[in-house]
């Protein structure tokens, strides 16, 4: 069966088909109605709290569009990378986002290899999970991507590339995200401080726990 991921983006994949669905029990929260479902988390905008997107873009421009977004797990690196990509379109660049799947950790995925080789003038390589590559692959990627107009990576630690943003999270950020995701969850109805502590500041894990609570 042909995959049609583009369908969902064009039709708002996080939306229900309709309010009058048939043959569907109207009992507990279905995954497609869960306010913390993955599609809604993926659509969240980056919460600018200490990191200002305009400044990140300005730093990237100064560094020849080479830089790293550095921070712990679940602090918004991937979200920030996506928004950096959107902004680079305004600079006339074409984003080429590459994501590291869990099964690819510790090796150079084939699609990364071909995309990095192919990237040229006008292309902006957005490498999410760059630090999960083996050392030889990180060196190869930076060497092979010299023809690309931009290379922006996410990493949990400092890398050879200049750090253009250090992401961090806070209970206040979690509270803002929870409030944005659902009307039922007024900021005070979830103990965001405790939840944030419990997940060691990992916002994604905290929001996934709220999925389970529905």
């Amino acid at each position: 069966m042909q995959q049609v991921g583009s369908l969902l983006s064009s039709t708002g994949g996080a939306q229900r088909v309709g309010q009058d669905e048939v043959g569907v029990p109207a009992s507990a929260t279905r995954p497609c109605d869960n306010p913390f479902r993955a599609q809604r988390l993926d659509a969240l905008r980056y919460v600018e709290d200490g990191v200002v997107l305009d400044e990140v873009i300005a730093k990237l421009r100064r560094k020849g569009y080479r830089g790293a977004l550095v921070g712990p797990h679940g602090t918004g690196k991937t979200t920030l990378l996506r928004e950096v990509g959107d902004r680079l379109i305004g600079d006339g660049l074409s984003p080429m986002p590459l994501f590291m799947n869990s099964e690819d950790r510790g090796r150079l995925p084939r699609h990364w290899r071909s995309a990095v080789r192919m990237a040229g003038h006008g292309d902006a390589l957005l490498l999410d999970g760059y630090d999960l590559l083996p050392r030889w692959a990180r060196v190869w990627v930076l060497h092979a991507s010299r023809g690309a107009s931009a290379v922006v990576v996410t990493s949990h630690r400092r890398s050879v590339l200049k750090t253009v943003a250090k992401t961090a999270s806070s209970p206040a950020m979690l509270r803002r995200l929870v409030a944005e995701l659902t009307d039922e969850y007024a900021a005070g109805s979830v103990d965001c401080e405790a939840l944030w502590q419990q997940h060691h500041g990992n916002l994604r894990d905290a929001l996934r726990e709220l999925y389970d609570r529905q």
Partner: protein
Amino acid sequence: MPDTADNLTLALDRTDGGYRPGEAITGLMRWSLRQPPERIDVRLFWWTSGKGSSDSGLAGELTFEGLAAQGEQAIVFDTPAGPYSFSGKLVTIQWAVEAVARPGKEVARAAVVLSATGSEVTV
């Protein structure tokens, strides 16, 4: 005052929306657009939503070209063997027929439930 807004609708003949594998989904698409569309694509597809990353699949596609600005068109899809419409703790699988007028942003959708009973499988 005349209504000048673009309009695209999709109505399935079976109002309960439930289908079994192999049954035909039939319906009628109507449109009234300010300009004749280049084409209207109609698709039968499924997608997942829930805790994990989403997936989707296309089960059928119809393309209509050379259309007037207003009109109607019957649609027919054969339903595949699966996946069944499903809702568990972690994932929901949903089906829909969707019509998209191009160029433009007019979209019409109709929910479909596919299973052996015509009702969503729940766990």
